[in-house]
């Protein structure tokens, strides 16, 4: 009897305790390290293509070679990065250093979870970074993140289709419309355009419009509406189609499958086209000019957690990963445009055909619109959909409604 009871109790306890296996931290780890003071800095990032992973691994290896007292432990977060990071921050288990998308930066910075970097930085060196990129990670004059690289939008076009139709690279809105018109034939459309604010905002900027003024909405102007109307007129006139209406997942697919002659996308198209459309001969050209130049830049920075226990070392990691040596590796990989002016030339020299991507950043603004970034994006996306489904008369009406939505 007694033995039976013992077995029962032991089993129950065993099952109960097994619930918590894995919850605890691995404590043995630090004691296994050599005796000298070696600090481990955790680095949070999202999973990306094998080429990008390789690049980061190489950068980390270089860092560890030159900084023997610091070890970088990479934490790849799969799934929804923003959601996972919030859960980590709430439980104070976030990495010391982590990727911060410029789109999310205002929320994270204003909540005070990011450490300002100013005291760790050499301000002369910071001048080497593209100013408009740094701007995206600034609040009240303080710098909260150093951009690692960026991408901006450009027109990717099918060279064969251009040749056949006798079309040259468009440089103005009128030329773009003309080209799209000529290229629309034999079941192929001139362009793939989607009701995505991240693609039509450049046109609003090119028309002289603005998206935000600090934390306030500034897009409900006739200028911004002009850009919006032009963008959607290309769809309404039948020169452009939504990728979904062509049965394609996104713009990239539409170009790779030769269903359209032009798409507006960024540098991520280059590795994509190599895989998905190796037989498509494509060229890259700057976005057309409206009344002025306008473009969006998508960038990611390394930011430091305020809760980091090794801030000095964490700053070393950030400075190295955005330093000249690391960004030279970015430039040579060609995966994105390095965020330092001194390295851009290296990029364009190695990949001359990608020069339009760099040139197109003149007049660009980062993909972020102040404290109401997500609200503004939601409202603008909806404004685009309303125009597409003819729920409003024109761009101005759509933008007025959008401005009201943000104000709520």
């Amino acid at each position, binding site marked *: 009897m007694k033995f039976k*009871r013992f077995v*029962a*109790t032991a089993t*129950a*306890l065993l*099952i*109960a305790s*097994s*619930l918590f296996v894995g919850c605890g931290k691995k404590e043995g780890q630090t004691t296994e390290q050599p005796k000298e003071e070696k600090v481990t800095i955790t680095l949070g990032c999202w999973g990306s293509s094998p080429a990008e992973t390789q690049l980061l691994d190489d950068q980390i290896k270089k860092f560890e070679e030159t900084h023997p007292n610091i070890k970088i432990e990479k934490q790849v977060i799969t799934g*929804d990065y*923003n*959601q996972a990071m*919030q*859960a980590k*921050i*709430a439980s104070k288990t976030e990495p010391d250093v982590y990727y911060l998308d410029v789109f999310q930066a205002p*929320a*994270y910075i204003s*909540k*005070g*979870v990011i450490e300002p970097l100013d005291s760790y930085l050499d301000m002369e060196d910071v001048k080497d970074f593209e100013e408009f990129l740094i701007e995206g990670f600034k609040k009240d004059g303080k710098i909260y993140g150093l951009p690692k690289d960026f991408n901006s939008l450009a027109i990717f076009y099918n060279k064969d289709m251009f040749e056949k139709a006798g079309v040259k690279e468009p440089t103005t809105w009128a030329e773009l419309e003309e080209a799209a018109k000529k290229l629309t034939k034999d079941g192929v459309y001139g362009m793939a355009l989607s*009701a995505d604010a991240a693609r039509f905002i450049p046109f609003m900027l090119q028309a002289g419009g603005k998206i935000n003024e600090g934390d306030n909405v500034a897009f409900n102007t006739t200028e911004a509406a002009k850009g919006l109307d032009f963008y959607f007129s290309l769809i309404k006139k039948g020169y452009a189609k*939504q990728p*979904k*209406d*062509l*049965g394609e997942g996104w713009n990239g697919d539409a170009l790779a499958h030769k269903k359209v002659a032009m798409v507006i996308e960024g540098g991520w198209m280059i590795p994509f086209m190599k895989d998905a459309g190796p037989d498509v001969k494509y060229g890259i050209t700057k976005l057309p000019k409206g009344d002025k130049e306008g473009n969006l830049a998508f960038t990611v920075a390394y930011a430091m957690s*305020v809760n980091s226990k090794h801030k000095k070392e964490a700053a070393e990691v950030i400075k190295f990963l955005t330093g000249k040596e690391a960004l030279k590796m970015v430039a040579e990989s060609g995966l994105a445009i390095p965020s330092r002016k001194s390295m851009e030339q290296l990029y364009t020299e190695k990949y001359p055909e990608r020069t339009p991507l760099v040139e197109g950043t003149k007049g660009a603004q980062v993909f972020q619109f102040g404290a109401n970034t*997500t*609200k503004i994006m*939601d409202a603008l*996306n*909806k404004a685009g*959909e*309303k125009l597409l*489904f003819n*729920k409003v008369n024109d761009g101005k009406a759509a933008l007025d409604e959008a401005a009201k939505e943000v104000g*709520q």
Partner: protein
Amino acid sequence: MSSKRGTLSRIKTREKIDGWLFVLPFVISTLVFFAGPLVVAFILSFKEYSFLDQTSIWQAKWVGFDNYLNAFKDPIFKKALLNTTLYSLGVVPIQLVIALILALIVDSDIKGKTFFRVAYYIPTVTSTVAVSVMFMFIFKTDGLLNKFLKVFGIPPYNWFGDVRFALPSIMGMAIWSSVGLYMIIFLAGLQDIPHSLYEAAWIDGANKWQQFWYVTLPLLRPTFFFNLVVSLIGTFQVFDQAYVVSGGNGGPLNATMTVVLYLYRTGFRDFKMGYACAIAFILFAIIFVLTLVQKKLFGEETQYQ
């Protein structure tokens, strides 16, 4: 006498302790992973809080019923609630009727019924995300559905991209993917009905239809109630399909915005976890009331034996 009673009660106490020890793992996991979060979420629903706040949950600002009141002023929440209700009204009845018919078929003496049982059940054990992706292939502009409709001269259509058809398309998908689950439960209910009742009905001269109407249906009532409740709760909590089909934004024009999708977006994207918790409890209240109403209408236990 007294010593005997003492031993007896001691054995009883021991049994009690053993019993608790055995259920302990479940009790602990329920407390830690279910009851605890539930209580915290309820408290949070009265606060202004985001996961990014450096202060703890307890220090977060108390806002009383503001989160609840705001929800009913929020046009997107109202739209989400309307969508979810329409979705539920569409999916639940159709799903249950089809499930019952399928259960009757696979319960009869047709050939290869094991095959059919498995075939109809497979979608249920398939991940909803995988099912959604598959349906996106079927419903896309040059997908299977449009190719099929083309045979009848109907021009291709972007089903998920249209305000009118996006939600019905998701409804069709949900019916297809979960009908097997309810079929299995109906099947169990059908096989629970004693054969003697059919025999008695047959002797009394009831035909097949009368047998179904006067024997099968009344006896299936508890099963039906169970299915109805589970199906309703499931449909009110729809998330995956809407998330995958709309790419997480509930588009086009909020046509596929469901309550849970909106909750997820407010909590994690707009950093309003307190508001998101309030929405969750509103949803809970709705489901709870609906379940009570159903219990009143269908739930009385009936014994025919």
